[in-house]
């Protein structure tokens, strides 16, 4: 039997996690902006971390290109506003298109997680 290399397992986990998170973080950010917006990046991320109980770990910087992509896709709009004595902040809020896309995506997510959870429950345990 070929011994399992821990670094290869970690590499696979990292790759899968990255693929899963890419779409999930977009959805979470769109949801967070829709529920609390207009809101700015740092505060959106603080909310996400709080709501996830610190379990959804990702590099904070990656949120900003995703916010930009959502804005470029017309799902978010932004404006620069004042902060409490600090430099101006960029505030995001959902557009009508963003709200409609969010609802559809949440439905898809519900369907996907239900399906995946069903598979995980019914699939035979263990392995060779």
């Amino acid at each position, binding site marked *: 039997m070929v011994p399992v290399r821990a670094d290869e397992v970690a590499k696979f986990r990292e790759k899968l996690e990255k693929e899963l998170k*890419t779409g999930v973080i977009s959805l979470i950010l769109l949801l967070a902006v829709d529920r609390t917006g207009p809101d*700015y*990046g*740092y505060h959106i*991320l603080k909310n996400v971390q709080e709501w996830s109980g610190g379990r959804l770990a990702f*590099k*904070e*910087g*990656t949120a*900003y*290109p*995703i916010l*930009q*992509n959502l804005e470029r896709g017309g799902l978010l709009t932004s404006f620069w506003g004042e*902060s409490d004595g*600090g*430099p*101006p*902040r*960029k505030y995001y809020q959902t557009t009508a298109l963003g709200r409609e896309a969010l609802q559809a995506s949440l439905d898809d997510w519900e369907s996907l997680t239900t399906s995946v959870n069903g598979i995980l429950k019914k699939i035979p345990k263990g392995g060779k």
Partner: protein
Amino acid sequence: MANLIEDYLREVSATLRVAPDRKRQILDELRTHLREKLDDERSQDPDAPVGDVERRVLADFGSPRDLALAYEPEGQVVLKNSAGDIVLRVGRAVGRGTGRVVKWTAITLAALLVIAIGVGIWAFYEVRPLVETMASQAMPVYDYEETCPQTPCNGANGRDIFFVGNNTKEVRLTVNVAPPWRDEGNGTGRVYVVLFDPAHARVFERNFTVTNESSGSREIRFASFPGNWTVEVEYFEFRGEVRVEAYAYALGWRDL
């Protein structure tokens, strides 16, 4: 305090391939986040060294290169020769080329201006006397010579017109009435000369008489008016041969 943050943002900026105004907005947004988080972290852990807190904040934020690449149009896929990249490269090259053209054009114009000023100063001191000398040279504008016997000059008259240009300051008219050969002079007579300026004003009139003892001669000077001047001559009491000469000169450059 925020040196590490600014270093981090410089690294992002070096990799970020977007238009300059867009880049500035991205960096402003990232800077706001990092500073707010730094302030929050420091308020929760005021005893921690600032550098340590900064490093922790930046570690949570992720690699600057990965972050910059994530701003690429295709997300995390880097298109080395994307259309946007080519446009930016061409824009930078054109900008540099335009800058060089503008710089060397300005230098050339400045050099030409300096040369022109130098030539102007040289001309003022060196050429002006030459021009003044040339201007002081009388330019002939009228020339009349006639040797008249008693007939047909006696009682005759004539009228001539000569032109004086804009830049003349003075007209000199010389009239000389004498026998053609003084040593053999036996002619006598009288010539009546009238000069009109271009406005037809009578500026001069005089009788020139030649006798057996003397000839009539005179140079008359007038301030110049540009235009056509008129000389009228009338012959009286001629006996024998009398020579009549009239010359007009213009002296120029009234504005020097």
